[in-house]
């Protein structure tokens, strides 16, 4: 619905006055966000104990590596139109390589400071990207997806079978305090690791942004839009895909390297298909058609993973429903929804949307509460009750055997859904009016 408007508006070019003004505003926003991320550990600093919140630091570090991972995935999905189901392979193998390199460095066999370890992780990812790209990148759409899935399963099996490199079920561990640092930092404290990740996330994201504005990046878009035509312009589209695939593997490897440094252990999970599925989710929910989409997606999903999982066993259900909802209603993701407001904001019409948004938010909240309530009630029936716990929903102790909670949540769900349908129709009408008006004025 809202999304149709994204595709009907042109992607802003780089040189017209209007868009350069917007992009400089966007740049400011990103710098603010970056500074905010840099300051966050100090906002959760406990001055009494003199320690940072370990929870927040872990979450932020996880976000950083997932942002790199999702951006690298989008080099395939969004930029080259390639759906891969085995991207965790490059992340995980980058991680395993880094663990072994850390061990080598600790024994004194590798004179590489820890800050530069991600480069080696990236090179290992690149190596695997070249090897597997050779197999996969020649194929078109479906065959490509199948081969990447096959590679994912293959490496997953190999990871359990070959103990020397993968350490079997227990994985491989290492010590990141290898006492080789460019800046004399020991990386004993998680906050030091966080800053290492922050810097590398920035470097990797900027490199990937740069790549989108090179001949290879442009041709990746071209082969995505029209594989065949690229051939009649002198390019071998398979070569374009191969290079894009290999470079994407490199950045995924950097993400995996940071993972190894953070957790000091890499297990089968890092190459497993669950992580491959997760990166599809993050990229899609964030929005594959816009560069910063995967950044949003990785941040939101990581936040849900860390925070929601504290409160609910059913958090995966919420992520899944969100994914289905996005695929159905907003295929260009969170970033696409934001970008859809761009033309309206530039025309100064955003204010006209406030009331419509308020009107849909009330039934939407009711629907959400009803849904969450039902899922939690059901979830409690199957797991929680057996553990002899009490269900606490929205701050109230709830008796799951009574009819009342079930009746209320069901009513919220049903009424919320029906009411939302009505309100959405009104919202779409207003939205349509505004965009139609803007189009008229631009002609």
């Amino acid at each position, binding site marked *: 619905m809202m999304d149709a408007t994204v*595709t*009907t508006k*042109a*992607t*802003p*070019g*780089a040189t*017209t006055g209007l*868009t350069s003004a917007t992009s400089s505003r966007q740049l400011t926003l990103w710098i603010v966000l970056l500074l905010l991320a840099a300051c966050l550990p100090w906002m959760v600093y406990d001055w009494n104990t003199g320690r940072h919140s370990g929870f927040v630091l872990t979450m932020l570090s996880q976000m950083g590596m997932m942002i790199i991972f999702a951006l690298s995935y989008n080099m395939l999905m969004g930029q080259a139109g390639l759906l891969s189901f085995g991207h965790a392979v490059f992340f995980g193998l980058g991680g395993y390589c880094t663990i072994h390199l850390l061990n080598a460095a600790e024994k004194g066999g590798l004179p590489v400071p820890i800050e530069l370890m991600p480069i080696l992780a990236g090179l290992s990812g690149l190596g695997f990207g070249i090897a597997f790209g050779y197999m996969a990148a020649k194929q078109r759409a479906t065959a490509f997806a199948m081969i990447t899935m096959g590679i994912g399963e293959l490496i997953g099996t190999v990871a359990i079978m070959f103990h020397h490199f993968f350490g079997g079920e227990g994985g491989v561990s290492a010590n990141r305090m290898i006492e080789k640092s460019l800046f004399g930092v020991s990386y004993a404290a998680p906050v030091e690791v966080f800053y290492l990740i922050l810097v590398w996330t920035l470097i990797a994201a900027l490199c990937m942004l*740069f*790549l989108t*504005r*090179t*001949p*290879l*990046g*442009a*041709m990746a*878009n*071209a082969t*995505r*839009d*029209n594989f*065949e*035509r*690229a*051939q*009649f*312009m*002198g*390019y*071998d589209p398979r*070569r*374009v895909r191969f*290079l894009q695939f290999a*470079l994407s593997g490199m950045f995924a490897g950097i993400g995996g390297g940071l993972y190894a440094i953070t957790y000091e252990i890499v297990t089968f999970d890092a190459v497993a298909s669950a992580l491959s599925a997760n990166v599809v989710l993050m990229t899609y929910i964030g929005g594959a058609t816009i560069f910063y989409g995967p950044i949003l997606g990785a941040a939101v999903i990581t936040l849900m993973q860390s925070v929601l999982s504290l409160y609910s066993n059913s958090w995966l259900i919420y992520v899944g429903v969100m994914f289905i909802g996005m695929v159905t209603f907003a295929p260009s993701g969170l970033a696409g929804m934001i970008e859809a407001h761009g033309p309206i904001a530039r025309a100064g019409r955003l204010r006209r949307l406030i009331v419509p948004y308020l009107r849909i938010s009330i039934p939407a909240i009711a629907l959400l509460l009803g849904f969450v309530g039902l899922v939690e009630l059901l979830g409690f029936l199957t797991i929680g009750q057996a553990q002899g716990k009490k269900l606490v929903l929205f701050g109230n102790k709830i008796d799951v055997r009574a009819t009342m909670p079930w009746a209320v949540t069901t009513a919220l769900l049903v009424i919320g859904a029906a009411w939302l349908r009505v309100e959405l129709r009104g919202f779409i009408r207003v939205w349509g009016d505004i965009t139609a008006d803007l189009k008229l004025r631009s002609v």
Partner: protein
Amino acid sequence: MSATVTIESALSLKDLRKSFGPTEIIRGTNLEVKRGERHAVIGPNGAGKTTLFNLISGRFPITSGEIYLNGTRIDELAPQEINRRGLSRSFQITSIFHRMTVFENIRCALLWSTGYRYSFWSPLWAQKALNEQAERLLDELNLLERRDLQAGLLSYAEQRALEIGITIAGGATVILLDEPTAGMSHSETEYAVALIKRVTEGKTLVMVEHDMHVVFGLADTISVVVYGEVIATGKPEEIRANRAVQEAYLGALTE
């Protein structure tokens, strides 16, 4: 089957054949296109004109025969290799990069010939000469105002102009255009003809075209293809007077 190739031939087809399954669609075509010529290929629907282009440009493998571009044999090369040797084609069904902007479409079409190849280290925004060249071409195509619009949102006639732009951007010396004016209004056709004349100046042009005004206005040589064979080649007035052509082709047209 002599393989002597006159060097002034930009393009020459020798006893070219193509079968799809059991049906032979191109049945022993011979064709010489001289350098700098504007050569129109006409013939009824289904005669095999587009298939001929697909064979020349390497889109389909040939069944037998030979194809020469500027004296070198190209019938076993991949499309991109043929393109790098100076042959470029357009498509009857518009084939552009619909999610990219109009500017990006043209710039991509320039990339190979300007030597960027698969570079992932040259920032495109800093390539002044390249960007200016793309802008100049857009201006020539009368698409400068549409520069930052997604190509998929252009009007039909504009997409056809972009199609031609992508085809000629790389500086190919032999240009194949497949029905460039099909589906256009009268004024759009006129505009497209002027555009084609301008941008193919000094090049070899082979064009499939149904509109006889366009054909007789633009071409200096005409070949008539019927059932996968060239039944006549000659100057426009010769073709107009040719009895066989009138029977085989003009008859089929009025069907």
